[in-house]
């Protein structure tokens, strides 16, 4: 049975004054209860601990009253008169003085419920022993609690309606129509929650079933949720089907590692192996929904190429050599020796870390290597962004002035800039959709190259901005009255905005000028935590500015150091450049994919130029193949940790498994540091947490971000923008789609089959001129993809998904915002 989750105490830090809610008093089974007006009877009953059986009812979906399982007797509707017939408690709002008798006290209600249950089982197959849902099935459970023991239908020789066993309604979702009780939870979810109404009721009577349009599968980024909310075993997961029984599974709460949303998930595992993942329940964050990526994207954990032991390179005379297995202690020693010999070393931890691991990298750089050359950003970045993060983002969180999911719902306007929520932050997209469906709903303005499907589903308005022109568009926003930017506006800026000179500054200026609230939404689960942990050349843990003497003393004291370098270190791009030029000789690198970095070729060159590379990774990669020492690190299931959401909300989780094959990054770094004779002061995650807590957040002055002129001379890793803007061609807009060739989606071909196709979006004029297949040429290469017209994209802009074909746009084409040429291609 799906009951309403208990609300956790409101922790959002907004000044939402609680509105006085009018309440009414009703009597349910003789117990008086006071509930807010318009509460449904079925929810009011939950308040006194009475669970009325139900199937179609779901607390987050609009009531429909279809299954009729929740019938109750209402002897007094609050006006002294009763209803002559039993009422569906899932559609009946309470009224003051109403008297309700549920199955517990009313023989009429009890018989009505038993009757409906009997009907539900008329056409339901008796295949519970082989059904995925058996053991966690609301129909099974409620048939026992509110049904009759014997089937009068079978004993009277009834013949069930049958259908061929499952049909696929998408590559990830299978439908067993015999088991379906057509409660419409799935169709209502699809229409109401993500706005993807690709499944609908077809046929009628007992033949009524869920169907898709011919050739139009249920391609929704959120389709897996229907499997979870199906109250019977009608919708099953292609990935999980027949693989386990619920009662053999152990469930562990966890946090989604695929984006910065921090969605609560539940990991169901058996004998050391994840069998499936479900959405957890967190009203403050993801409610009860997760993306298909969070649900199905876990097979990378058991990929063939997972590293299971440390390796060190045996150098031969010519300098080359082979990686060979090594013991942990040997690997620590070899790494320490190599780093000592290498001298100046940069640290690139990547954006997938827990706060604890990020802190370890931050501390390792400073304590063991004595440098601020550490940057979590393994993607295009800018100095402007570095400054912006330190001034406008770090330390903000729920309760500290930070924007929360709840604020998105209550905002009158939400501005999205450099952020495509459906692709880059699924939980934000769903919350915005919820907000826009209200009356009066939240209005969404998107500063983007064209109106995406997500924007249409949010009934949003496009503020058109070609790549590189976002700053201008953001500036114009504040000046137009019809945009209504003010105190109850939230501006969400995506990490991509770093590649658009002046855009982050313009966003900060807009917020400062209008009183709008600002939040930064990164793509990776570890980005925000790494920022808080000081994995940035300008910031120490707790948001302490490197340039602030007091902050340095704070940290140095905590770490038992005499001092810390006074000037900020190199950012990721500068580390790459310094490795190539020989200024840096050593590199400690976490989960960084060269093709994600600002200039993949430059990164590869730096990897070749480095004299000593220590790699910490989950799987064998180009980086580990080039490294001198390779450490296998623990995946999210194998360690405790904390992700920090884009809001700044810590989302701690515990280890699911104990796996001796890999250690958390923090333990690896502690081991190397000890061999270097500069111990970090921790070995375990609890010790890291203790140190983090002792250090606490910075309460001093921040380094302000200069918002005076958005035309800051930002040195951007997307440096091509300024130079090439005059050179004609098409401006390149790009971002990563939710489902693409990302390595954390490896291993689930069902999931990958639901990805949106790789194609180029162009204006009608461009399509007219060059035809349906286009070859794009940039300064890094050429890609050929089919074209699709986007109605409102500018004539000199093209959009390409960043990682849906080949090695991705950064490696194969050009940097975002730069100019590319377009020619028609022959099919």
């Amino acid at each position, binding site marked *: 049975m799906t009951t309403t989750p208990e609300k956790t105490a409101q922790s959002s830090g907004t000044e939402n004054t609680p509105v006085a809610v009018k309440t009414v008093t009703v009597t349910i089974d003789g117990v008086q209860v006071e509930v807010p007006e318009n509460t449904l009877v079925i929810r009011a009953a939950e308040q006194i601990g009475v669970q009325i059986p139900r199937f179609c009812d779901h607390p987050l979906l609009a009531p429909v009253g279809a299954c009729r399982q929740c019938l109750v007797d209402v002897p007094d509707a609050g006006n002294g008169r009763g209803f002559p017939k039993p009422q569906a408690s899932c559609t009946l709002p309470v009224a003051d003085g109403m008297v309700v008798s549920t199955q517990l006290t009313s023989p009429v209600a009890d018989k009505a419920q038993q009757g409906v249950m009997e009907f539900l089982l008329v056409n339901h197959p008796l295949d519970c022993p082989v059904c995925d849902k058996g053991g966690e099935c609301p129909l099974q459970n409620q048939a026992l609690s509110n049904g009759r023991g014997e089937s009068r239908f079978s004993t009277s020789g009834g013949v069930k309606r049958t259908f061929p066993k499952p049909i696929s309604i998408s590559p990830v979702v299978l439908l067993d129509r015999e088991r379906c009780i057509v409660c419409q939870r799935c169709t209502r979810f699809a229409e109401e929650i993500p706005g993807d109404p690709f499944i609908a009721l077809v046929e009628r*009577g007992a033949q009524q079933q869920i169907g898709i349009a011919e050739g139009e599968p249920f391609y929704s980024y959120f389709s897996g949720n229907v499997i979870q909310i199906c109250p019977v075993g009608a919708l099953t997961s292609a990935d999980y089907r027949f693989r386990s029984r619920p009662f053999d599974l152990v469930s562990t709460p966890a946090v989604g590692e695929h984006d910065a949303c921090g969605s609560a998930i539940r990991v169901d595992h058996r004998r050391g192996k994840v069998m499936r993942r479900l959405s957890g329940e967190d009203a403050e964050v993801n409610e009860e929904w997760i993306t298909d990526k969070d649900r199905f994207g876990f097979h990378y954990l058991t990929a063939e190429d997972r590293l299971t032991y440390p390796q060190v390179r045996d150098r031969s005379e010519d300098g080359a050599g082979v990686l060979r297995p090594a013991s942990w202690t040997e690997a620590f020693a070899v790494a320490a020796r190599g780093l000592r010999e290498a001298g100046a070393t940069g640290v690139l931890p990547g954006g997938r870390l827990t706060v604890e691991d990020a802190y370890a990298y931050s501390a390792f750089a400073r304590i063991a290597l004595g440098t601020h050359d550490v940057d979590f950003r393994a993607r295009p970045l800018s100095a402007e962004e570095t400054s912006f993060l330190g001034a406008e983002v770090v330390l903000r969180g729920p309760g500290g002035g930070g924007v929360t999911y709840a604020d998105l719902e209550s905002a009158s306007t939400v501005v999205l800039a450099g952020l495509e929520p459906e692709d880059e932050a699924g939980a934000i997209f769903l919350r915005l959709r919820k907000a826009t469906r209200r009356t009066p709903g939240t209005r969404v303005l998107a500063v983007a190259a064209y109106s995406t499907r997500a924007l249409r589903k949010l009934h949003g308005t496009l503020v058109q901005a070609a790549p590189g022109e976002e700053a201008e568009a953001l500036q114009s926003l504040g000046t137009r009255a019809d945009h209504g930017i003010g105190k109850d506006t939230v501006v969400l800026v995506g990490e991509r905005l770093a590649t658009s000179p002046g855009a982050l500054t313009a966003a900060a200026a807009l917020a400062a000028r209008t009183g709008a609230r600002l939040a930064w939404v990164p793509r990776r689960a570890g980005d925000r935590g790494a920022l808080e942990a000081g994995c940035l050349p300008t910031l120490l843990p707790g948001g302490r500015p490197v340039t602030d003497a007091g902050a340095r003393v704070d940290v140095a004291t905590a770490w038992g150091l005499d001092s810390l370098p006074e000037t900020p270190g190199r950012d990721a791009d500068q580390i790459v450049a310094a490795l190539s030029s020989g200024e840096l000789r050593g590199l400690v690198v976490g989960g960084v994919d060269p093709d994600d970095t600002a200039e993949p070729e430059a990164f590869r060159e730096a990897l070749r130029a480095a004299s000593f590379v220590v790699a910490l990774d989950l799987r064998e990669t180009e980086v580990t193949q080039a490294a001198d020492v390779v450490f296998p690190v623990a995946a999210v299931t194998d360690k405790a940790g904390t992700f920090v959401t884009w809001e700044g909300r810590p989302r701690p989780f515990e280890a699911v498994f104990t796996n001796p094959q890999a250690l958390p990054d923090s333990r690896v770094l502690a081991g190397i540091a000890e061999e270097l004779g500069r111990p970090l002061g921790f070995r375990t995650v609890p010790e890291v947490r203790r140190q983090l807590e002792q250090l606490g957040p910075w309460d001093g002055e921040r380094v302000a971000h200069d918002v005076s002129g958005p035309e800051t001379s930002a040195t951007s890793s997307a440096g091509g923008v300024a130079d090439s803007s005059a050179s004609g061609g098409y401006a390149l807009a790009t971002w990563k789609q939710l489902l693409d060739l990302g390595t954390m989606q490896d291993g689930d071909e069902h999931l990958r089959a639901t990805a949106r196709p790789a194609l180029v979006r162009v204006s009608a004029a461009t399509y007219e001129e060059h035809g349906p297949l286009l070859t794009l040429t940039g300064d890094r290469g050429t890609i050929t993809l089919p074209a699709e017209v986007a109605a409102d994209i500018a004539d000199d802009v093209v959009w390409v998904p960043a990682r849906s074909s080949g090695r991705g746009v950064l490696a194969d084409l050009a940097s975002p915002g730069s100019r590319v040429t377009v020619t028609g291609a022959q099919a």
Partner: protein
Amino acid sequence: MSEQQTEQTAGRTTNTLTPVLTDIWADEQSWKLDTYTRRGGYRALDKALGMAPDDIITAVKDSGLRGRGGAGFPTGMKWSFIPQDNPKPKYLVVNADESEPGTCKDTPLLMANPHVLVEGVIISSFAIRANKAFIYVRGEIVHVIRRVQAAVAEAYAAGHLGKDIHGSGYDLDVVVHAGAGAYICGEETALLEGLEGRRGQPRLRPPFPAVAGLYASPTVINNVESIASVPSIVDNGAAWFASMGTEKSKGFGIFSLSGHVTRPGQYEAPLGVTLRELIDLAGGIREGHELKFWTPGGSSTPLLTAEHLDVPLDFEGVASVKSMLGTRALQLFDETTCVVRAVLRWTEFYKHESCGKCTPCREGTWWLVQTLSNLEKGIGQESDLDLLVDQCDNILGRSFCALGDGATSPITSSIQFFRDEYLRHLTEGGCPFDPARSTLFADELEMA
């Protein structure tokens, strides 16, 4: 006959036919605008356009006209529920989705006299201040759809529809919409769904259509006959209309007689007329036979027997014998008919037409058909009758809309009156009736 019934019968004001809607049916090309106009058509429209809209609503209220689609809700009161301060457009929707087994009044009315509906639509729309009206016609009756479309086109050409009707400044457009073949779309909210292009399934109420109906705007949905009665009320006055019928069921209605009767057809009479009188008018039960059972208002109204011949056919009279006036679809069955077989046919209809939205109706009708068809074949035991009654008890009042309720009516009422006949199927190992004998040609064959 009970004493109460005697009194009611005695209190009736008239027992003769009162042709109003059917008055011109026999005319040459009665469906043409010319014919209708020659017989005084569109005269009431001018009168109405000269009245204040609220006065029309008052007149309809005063007339006592109650919905002719079966439920009998007072029409004028329904109109007065339309919130006139709502800035959204108001709509009138005419329910011409006549699909109930036995019901055959709107179809012949629209064939023979479509203009009385069109005139009624204009007056009613003017009264509720709608500028757009829809006539939702059952999809299978293509001939009727064509005739209504032709009538609407004639009305447009004559200036009865469109802009500035009769120089009054009032605009009205009428859309004739064809259904797609679903009984459920006769349910008003399912009809609205269908009209909006969605799947025909009933909506959750509240909000009621008067507040948020078609396209979430205030909407009046009325049966064809209700709207068609409006011109005569405007023309002749509320008192004229109220002078017919009984105290709480005023006016006239079309009674359609079908089945084993000598002259089946539509008989327009004041409410409160009895079946005995109507059968007399129709030339009696077919010769050599006697009435066995009948439905007062289509298959979803509990069936009655010969002992109910003198029940006044008005809302209260029929309700007093635990049935419903419904659509006045009087299906008459003589002693050659097997009641089990007849009920099974109806139940098959409900199973076929159940929309599938709610469990009791969807699954219940599936099961009812199986239980009934076994009984009809003589398979089963006496306790299966109790099972049937219990199944019905679990459907009636538990379904989302009235379709499920209607499905149970013939079963429970037939078991009430003809339990022995059900049992004979079991004791005799099958149906004791020769189905051919109940056909209308059976007697002719015998004679020949």
